[in-house]
């Protein structure tokens, strides 16, 4: 078959298209070549762009601008939170759910709190773990899971953390722009974000801090970001992050339309392919995400077949080799390895249309039919 000249991009949880406003902000920023740390006018102009973006980002999750720390990625924001909070507050242990992103799990060796079959953290187990350890413990929990979209009871987790004198970091990378995020109301100690999940550029993230919380820099060596993250700022990326953050209310207003498309896709799957399994469907989750297992057809095959037909989805956790391993998230939910190896993630976004969903189904349903035959 001839290569497709257009792609149905259904992998918004991996990354999103760059919003036009963000691209314009990048273009405008390119003339601001000054170093934001410089005293002179060129430096001041660059710094003004960074600070303007900081205010926009802070507004998107209801935080104070001076407590927003720009980083090089969501992964770096998680590292700064987990290493920086633990070091500055002499935390005795770090706890997380087993479904966290690898950039969080890399810093949590002490205990993984189990999740139920829907992928929701077991709060009673979290409380037992908090009660059995000397304060202060560092708890980290994601707001929305990247693979299933399942929302975690972060408000209750924050309450538990307060009750036991623990610190708590919330990984909100996957949530921003898809569900309302209110950092101030939640009361967590820190929250991480990534620009390219909301239409910004890759290579920029942010950590938002509760006023007064102590944190140690993970990358020392400069006074940038109020000594919490050294290194000359990525001015263009930060400017684009600000522009994308200003678009968060628009993204949220598109959510009902996206959810309706996702629900239509899942309904077609459920009616056409009874053996298919949809994860997290029984609990609150992101409206754009569908995590589907098709017994008998490997994730690899589904992703490749869809890609060759011009439909972009993803599966499991890809190593930098491109090899696909079964999703650790599904395994942590108690899904068997053989089923986990047949799961794919379909994640929709603001540019997704009914035609994209149809195109997905047109390729995927015959795969399912062949497997059943």
């Amino acid at each position: 078959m001839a290569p497709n000249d257009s792609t149905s991009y259904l992998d918004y949880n991996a990354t999103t298209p760059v919003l036009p406003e963000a691209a314009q902000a990048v273009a405008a920023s390119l003339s601001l070549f000054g170093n934001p740390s410089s005293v002179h006018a060129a430096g001041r102009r660059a710094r003004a762009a960074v600070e303007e973006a900081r205010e926009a980002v802070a507004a998107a999750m209801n935080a104070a601008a001076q407590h927003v720390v720009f980083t090089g990625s969501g992964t770096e924001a998680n590292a700064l939170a987990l290493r920086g909070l633990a070091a500055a507050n002499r935390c005795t242990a770090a706890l997380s759910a087993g479904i966290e992103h690898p950039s969080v799990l890399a810093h949590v060796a002490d205990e993984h709190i189990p999740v139920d079959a829907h992928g929701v953290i077991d709060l009673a187990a979290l409380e037992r773990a908090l009660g059995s350890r000397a304060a202060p413990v560092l708890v980290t929990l994601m707001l929305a899971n990247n693979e299933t979209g399942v929302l975690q009871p972060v408000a209750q987790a924050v309450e538990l953390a307060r009750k036991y004198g623990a610190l708590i970091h919330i990984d909100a990378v996957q949530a921003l722009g898809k569900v309302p995020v209110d950092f101030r109301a939640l009361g967590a100690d820190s929250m991480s974000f990534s620009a390219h999940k909301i239409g910004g550029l890759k290579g920029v993230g942010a950590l938002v801090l509760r006023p007064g919380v102590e944190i140690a820099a993970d990358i020392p060596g400069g006074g940038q970001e109020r000594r919490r993250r050294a290194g000359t700022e990525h001015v263009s990326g930060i400017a684009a992050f600000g522009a994308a953050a200003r678009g968060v209310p628009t993204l949220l207003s598109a959510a009902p339309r996206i959810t309706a498309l996702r629900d239509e896709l899942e309904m077609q799957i459920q009616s056409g392919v009874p053996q298919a399994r949809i994860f997290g469907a029984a609990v609150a989750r992101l409206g754009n995400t569908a995590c589907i297992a098709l017994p008998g057809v490997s994730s690899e095959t589904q992703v490749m077949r869809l890609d060759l037909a011009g439909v972009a989805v993803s599966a499991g956790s890809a190593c930098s080799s491109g090899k696909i391993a079964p999703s650790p998230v599904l395994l942590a939910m108690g899904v068997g390895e053989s089923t986990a190896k047949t799961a794919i993630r379909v994640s929709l976004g603001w540019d997704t249309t009914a035609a994209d969903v149809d195109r997905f189904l047109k390729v995927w349903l015959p795969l399912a039919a062949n497997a059943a035959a």
Partner: protein
Amino acid sequence: MSAANSMGFAKPPAETRVVVAMSGGVDSSVVAALLKSEGYDVVGLTMQLYDHGAATAKSKTCCAGQDIYDARRVSDMIGIPHYVVDYETTFKADVMDRFAEAYIHGETPVPCVMCNQTVKFRDLLKAAKDLGADALATGHYVQRVATGAGVEMRQAVDPDRDQSYFLFATTRAQLDFVRFPLGGMTKPEARVLGQKFNLHVASKPDSQDICFVPNGDYAAVIRGLRPDAAVPGEIVHVDGRVLGRHDGVIHFTVGQRKGLGVGGEAEPLYVVRIEPETARIIAGPKETLLRDSFALHGVNWLGAGGGPDADGVQVRVKLRNTHTPVAATLFGEADPAKARVVLAAPEAAVTPGQACVFYAETQVLGGGWIARDHGAALIPHNLRRPGPSVTAAAG
């Protein structure tokens, strides 16, 4: 009806999907670039076979070796989709474990054949079919020729490069689906094509040895897979004298001369037989290595009919990859997976576990695995001499 395209299909190349098994080396990269230039709908697949970091004992490195990056880079450059398929589990079970098992049983395996017959032409071939491919192309130097009577396998035109030895186990059904575009080319010609297509791997050195034994220390790999593998034992002369001790039969290959660590003998000694049951290595002078007949198992037949004739068929046989084929008579048996080979002249180092591949001129008629010979009677009586006692063996 239009004439068949270069892959043998009566449709335009653009409507013919060919999956190329891309190793990241120059050969398969050239195949992908060549087919792409001919207008085929080319898809590159690279197999992830083992944890590269673990194999090289650098646990901090990625699971993938440089080869995967090279394959991906070539695919990006020539503009084809490329995917990595994970066969670590099956590669361990079907190739690495069998490799270790063979050495433990006193054989010298050919893991590349095992890989071709399982991971590559069973699993990768299925993956290609799952992707709707019409054919699977590889960078092997061997020829596939469609004749009126069916598809034949022939040696590559470049005798230095011929890889038919490693492909003897390819079944007819597999041969129908696979293509070897380099079989009619020499390696220098392939490299020139690599340069013409501006591939960054054009001058990459050829891969050496066994991919999962990166530094050649295969015994270390076996010990890693099977910590109980190395059972020390005796080195015994064919005349019965105990000559010394060894660290395990896995370190030996029939026909091997170096590494026995026994001196003071009148003539050089070779490993004549390996007895894993008693952990004994039997050594003897060169003439005790000679064999003129041996049994095969796991026979794959690609010639006419259902298998070699029970009354014998004249063939030439290749007993290891570097061996120049010699004349032999091949006898089929009631069990089509078994056969017996009688050589026209005795050969040294008929090594159990190696493949014996049958040829008629350049046509590959199939092959089988050389079975261990169990008979003690193979030591000619006139070579047995009353030896000194065990203690005299030191030297």
